[in-house]
């Protein structure tokens, strides 16, 4: 069985390193992008099974990238989990309006991250 592919998008090297360190323990192929625009390009080329994307990023924010991914025929079915700094109503609402499937808040909790990734990969 081929490994599931997860695209991790974050401009912060520490956050990226943290997420990949957590996900490396799982049987996933990890691909990376460092901003929203690159995320769209990598998603179209790699067709990952899941996208885990930070919100605050240069070039395109996570919300903008998510909205675009969900409008494109070739990427709209890929589940997107947004990583938000603020878990308050407005931010979460904006996330779901952009079409994201789920969100997690910072600071990153490894167990929550793994649970959500497993859930969306399986579902």
């Amino acid at each position, binding site marked *: 069985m081929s490994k599931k592919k997860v695209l991790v998008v974050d401009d*912060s*090297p*520490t*956050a990226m*390193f*943290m997420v990949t*360190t*957590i996900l490396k*323990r799982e049987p996933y192929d990890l691909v990376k992008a460092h901003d929203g625009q690159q995320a769209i390009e990598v998603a179209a080329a790699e067709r990952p099974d899941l996208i885990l994307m930070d919100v605050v990023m240069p070039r395109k924010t996570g919300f903008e990238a998510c909205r675009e991914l969900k409008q494109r025929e070739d990427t709209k079915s890929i589940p997107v989990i947004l990583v938000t*700094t*603020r*878990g*308050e109503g407005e931010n979460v609402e904006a996330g779901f309006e952009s079409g994201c499937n789920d969100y997690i*808040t*910072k*600071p*990153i*909790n*490894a*167990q929550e991250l*793994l649970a959500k990734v497993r859930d969306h990969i399986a579902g």
Partner: protein
Amino acid sequence: MKQSDHGAYVRKVQEGAQSFAQDLLGEIERLRMLVATLEAERESLAGKAQEAHQVFKVNEALRALAASLEAEMNRLHEQAIAVRAENERHQKEQARLLAQLDGVRAETTAYSSRYAEIELQNSNLANLYVASYRLHGTLERQEVIDTLKEIIANLVGSEEAGLFELDEAKQSLELVASFGISPEACSSVPLGSGIIGRAGQTGEIYVADPAGPPSGSGLEGRLTACIPLILGGRVTGAIAIFRLLPQKAGIEDLDRELFDLLATHAATALYCTTLHERFALEGARR
């Protein structure tokens, strides 16, 4: 004998004969009646005998049936004993399997609890590993500062922090980088003054009591933690972490471990970048 006597005698004989004949006829009639009665009785007895024969045959059949039923009953009884024995054996087996299942269940619970514990430890270690790896992954001072900011935002959960370095001549902590706060509010903190100054003086990590009133005034009223940076047993600076992100309930055990790590590793990383910059400068001068 006279003729009259002879006639009387004949008459007498005739009468006797008639009487005898009468008696005989009566007897014959009685016997006929008796024969008829006996015949009827015989017929009745024959009927009864036939009936008795049939009853006997039925009785025989019933006896055979009873014997067969008794045999069947015995067989069923034996079968019931065997079934009961089998049932008892199954019950014992079931009890044994249930006990085994309970054991397996308890073992599974213990394993999953252990697994969760290990996963939590792994996560905690991942945080510490990431922080340590990132801090020591560069010799660029700005990158170390950016990394500290990212660690505080992504691993601790705060967007308000300040990084201070000790100015030995001035005996104060000087703000060298900050985010989310106004730098003017704490650009220089004398050692021993306020919470940050005291942490710089004592070298002890300060963590605010979330249930208690604010320990400091002004910007320090928002202070969540202050981590003195220690190198070779001496304080070289401090990291002040102010408000946590709204979704972060408070400082946890893992944060305290991370603070311990930052206290030494951030100090070392900053010191190394300073040394590196100095060597680079000296190298450029030569």
